[in-house]
C-alpha cells in the first residue's frame, strides 16, 4: 500500500516537471524508434562504448583538475602529489590515462567497423565526416593530455611537435610561436595546452558528439549490409523505411542491452588496467638541462615515431606536411567518392585490403618503435662488454682492436653477440662480407649511413680495429678475401725488389 502511494507521488512529481519540460514524449520516441532487427549485433556496440569512455574521461578529468596545477613550475609536483599524497589520486590518474588509450582504440575500431559495413554511404555522409572530426579531436586530446603530464617526454615531445610545425613553408616560425605561446617551450606552452585539453577540444567534442548522435537518430542506424543489396540515392530511403517497418524492433530494449553490456565491460576493463598497471608517469622532471633522456611518445603515436626514423631525409618534410592533408582529405571525401553501391565487405575487396594494409603497417611501426632499432644505444659502449668468445685466442693487436671497438663507441650502433645497438648491421660475421681494404675504407670514410671515423682514429688504432674486425666470422666460414690483393701487393713490391 505504501509503495503504491509512493509511486503515485512520484508520478505526480514527474508529471509536474514534464508539464514544464515536455521532454518525456520525445525521449520515449527516441528510445523506441525502430531499428532493423539484425543491427542488434555485437558489431554495433563500439559507438556507444566510445561515448561511455568519453563520459568517464570527463568525470576523471574533472576529478584530476581538482588537484592538478597547470603551471610549468608546479605541474610535475602536483602530479607527484596525485600519485603519492592524495588518496586514490594514483587510481584516478590511471583511469584517465587508460581511459584515453581505450578511447582511441574504441574510436578506431568503431571507424573500421562503419567503414567495412559501408555505413558512410548515402545518406550518412555527414555522419561519417563528423566522425572523422571526432577521431581527430580524440587524437588531439591524446596528444594534449600527454603534454599536461608535464615530464621529460612531454617537454621533448613538444619540441618534436614544434620541429614538425616549423617545416611549414613561410608560416612555420609563426606556427611554432603560436603553438608554444612564445619562443621556447615554457609556462605559456603548458597553459595553452591546458586550455585546449580542458576547454576547447572537449567543448567541440561534446558539440560534435551531439551532432553525430542526432544524425544517427534522424537517419537511422545503418542496416546490416547484405551482399548484393545496392545503395542508390533514389531508392535507399524508401527501402530503409520499409526494412525498419517490416523487420524492425524498438531500439530500447531490443538492441540497447548489448550496448549496455559492452559499455559496462569497457568500464570494468579500464578499471582493471588502472588497478593492475597503474598511472602513466610522470617520468623525469621537465628540466631541459637534463639531457640524459630518451623521449618516447605515448602508445598511439609510436607508429609516427617509427615512421620519422625510417623515412629517407629528403621525403620527410613532404611526407610530414602533405601526408596528413592527404589522409584527412581522403577520409572526408570518401563518402562522396563511393556514396553509392555495395555496402557489404564481402563484395568490397579493396576496402578490406586497405584496412588490412593500414592495420599491418601501423602495427609493424608500433612494434618497431617498441625496441627502436634505429636509435644508438647510448650506453652500450660502457655497459655491454665484448663477449669472451670474440677475444679468445686472439693476438695482442686484435685485442687492442677490440678495445678500440669498445672505446670508440662502435657498440652504440653495432651489436656483437646480440648485445649493443642495432642502428648499423650486426658485426658478428662482418669479415665474411667485407675484405680488409673494404673494412679500412668503411671505418675511415663511413658511408651507407655510417659516420666517417678517419679524423678520430690514429693509423695504429685503425690497423688494430680492422685486425679485430677481420676475426669476426663464423667458425668454418673463411673471411672475405680480395683475390687480386696478393697480386697487386707483389706488383708493388716487384719494382722495389729489383735493385
Amino acid at each position: 500500500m505504501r509503495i503504491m502511494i509512493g509511486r503515485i507521488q512520484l508520478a505526480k512529481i514527474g508529471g509536474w516537471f514534464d508539464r514544464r519540460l515536455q521532454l518525456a514524449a520525445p525521449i520515449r520516441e527516441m528510445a523506441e524508434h525502430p531499428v532493423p532487427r539484425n543491427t542488434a549485433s555485437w558489431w554495433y556496440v563500439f559507438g556507444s562504448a566510445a561515448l561511455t569512455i568519453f563520459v568517464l574521461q570527463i568525470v576523471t578529468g574533472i576529478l584530476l583538475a581538482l588537484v592538478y596545477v597547470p603551471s610549468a613550475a608546479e605541474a610535475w609536483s602536483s602530479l607527484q602529489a596525485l600519485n603519492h599524497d592524495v588518496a586514490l589520486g594514483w587510481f584516478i590518474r590511471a583511469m584517465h590515462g587508460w581511459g584515453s588509450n581505450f578511447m582511441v582504440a574504441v574510436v578506431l575500431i568503431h571507424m573500421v567497423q562503419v567503414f567495412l559495413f559501408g555505413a558512410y554511404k548515402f545518406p550518412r555522409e555527414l555522419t561519417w565526416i563528423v566522425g572523422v572530426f571526432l577521431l581527430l579531436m580524440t587524437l588531439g586530446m591524446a596528444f594534449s593530455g600527454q603534454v599536461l603530464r608535464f615530464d621529460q617526454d612531454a617537454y621533448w615531445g613538444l619540441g618534436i611537435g614544434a620541429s614538425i610545425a616549423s617545416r611549414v613553408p613561410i608560416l612555420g616560425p609563426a606556427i611554432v610561436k603560436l603553438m608554444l605561446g612564445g619562443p621556447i617551450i615554457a609556462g605559456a606552452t603548458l597553459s595553452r595546452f591546458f586550455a585546449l585539453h580542458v576547454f576547447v577540444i572537449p567543448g567541440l567534442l561534446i558539440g560534435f558528439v551531439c551532432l553525430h548522435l542526432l544524425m544517427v537518430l534522424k537517419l537511422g542506424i545503418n542496416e546490416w549490409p547484405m551482399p548484393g543489396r545496392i545503395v542508390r540515392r533514389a531508392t535507399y530511403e524508401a527501402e530503409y523505411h520499409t526494412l525498419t517497418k517490416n523487420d524492425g524492433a524498438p531500439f530500447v530494449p531490443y538492441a540497447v542491452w548489448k550496448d549496455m553490456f559492452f559499455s559496462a565491460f569497457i568500464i570494468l576493463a579500464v578499471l582493471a588496467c588502472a588497478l593492475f598497471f597503474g598511472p602513466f608517469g610522470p617520468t623525469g622532471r621537465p628540466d631541459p638541462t637534463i639531457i640524459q633522456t630518451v623521449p618516447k611518445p605515448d602508445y598511439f603515436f609510436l607508429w609516427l615515431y617509427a615512421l620519422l626514423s625510417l623515412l629517407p631525409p629528403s621525403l620527410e618534410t613532404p611526407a610530414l606536411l602533405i601526408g596528413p592533408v592527404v589522409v584527412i582529405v581522403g577520409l572526408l571525401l570518401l563518402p562522396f567518392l563511393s556514396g553509392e553501391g555495395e555496402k557489404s565487405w564481402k563484395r568490397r575487396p579493396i576496402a578490406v585490403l586497405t584496412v588490412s594494409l593500414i592495420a599491418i603497417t601501423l602495427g609493424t611501426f608500433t612494434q618497431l618503435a617498441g625496441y627502436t632499432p634505429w636509435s644508438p644505444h647510448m650506453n652500450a659502449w660502457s655497459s655491454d662488454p665484448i663477449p669472451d668468445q670474440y677475444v679468445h685466442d686472439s693476438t695482442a693487436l686484435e685485442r687492442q682492436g677490440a678495445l678500440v671497438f669498445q672505446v670508440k663507441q662502435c657498440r652504440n650502433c653495432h651489436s656483437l653477440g646480440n648485445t649493443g645497438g642495432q642502428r648499423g648491421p650486426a658485426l658478428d660475421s662482418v669479415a665474411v662480407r667485407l675484405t680488409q681494404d673494404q673494412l679500412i675504407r668503411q671505418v675511415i670514410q663511413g658511408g651507407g649511413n655510417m659516420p666517417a671515423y678517419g679524423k678520430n682514429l690514429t693509423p695504429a688504432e685503425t690497423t688494430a680495429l680492422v685486425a679485430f674486425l677481420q676475426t669476426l666470422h663464423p667458425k668454418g666460414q673463411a673471411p672475405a678475401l680480395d683475390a687480386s690483393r696478393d697480386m697487386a701487393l707483389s706488383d708493388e713490391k716487384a719494382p722495389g725488389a729489383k735493385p
Partner: protein
Amino acid sequence: MDTKPALAESTDTTISRRGFLMKLGILFNALAATILAVPIMGFLFSAITRGRANGYLSWVPLGKVSEFPEGETRLATFQNPYAMPTDGMTVGTACWVRRVAGEQFQVFAINCAHLGCPVRWFPQSGLFMCPCHGGAYYRDGSRASGPPERGLFEYPYKIESGLIIIQAGELPTPGAAIARLGEKPSCAS
C-alpha cells in the same frame, strides 16, 4: 486588416521599417564583432608579433672563457632571456660549447636538427648522437649520418671581458631566426 497590404508592399522593392531596422541591427552587430575581433586576435597572435624587430633573441652569458678547455666540447646551460614567473625549470636551456682554439668557439644547440631531441656528445668517437631517431653529427656540428638534413644549429657568440656570450632565446627549429643566424654565408668559407 491593415497588415495585408503592408506585407504585400514589403515584397515589392520598398523596404519596410522593421526590415530596415533588422538589417541595421545586423550591420551594427557586424561592426561590434569587427571591433571585438581586434583585441581578441591581437591577444591570440601576440606570441608571434611580440618584439618583432629582433624577435626574442638577446645576448646571454654562458660563463668564463677559461671554463672551457681548448679542443674540448662541454655542456653549458643558460637562462632563457624571455622568461615568465610560471616557467619553472623550463627556463633553463642546455647547449654544447666547443672551444676550437683560443677565442674561436662553436656553440651548438642541444636540439637535434631533425626533430629537436637533445643530442649527446661522445668525446671518444668525436660524435654527437641523438637518442630519438638516430641522427649523428661530427665534432664541428656537421651532419654525419641519420635523418637530419643539416648540421647542428649554432648560436652566434662573442667574447666580452673574458665571458662567452651567445645570442639565444628561441627554440632552434629549421625555420627559427636562430637557424638563419647560425647559417654561414656560402662565400665566407
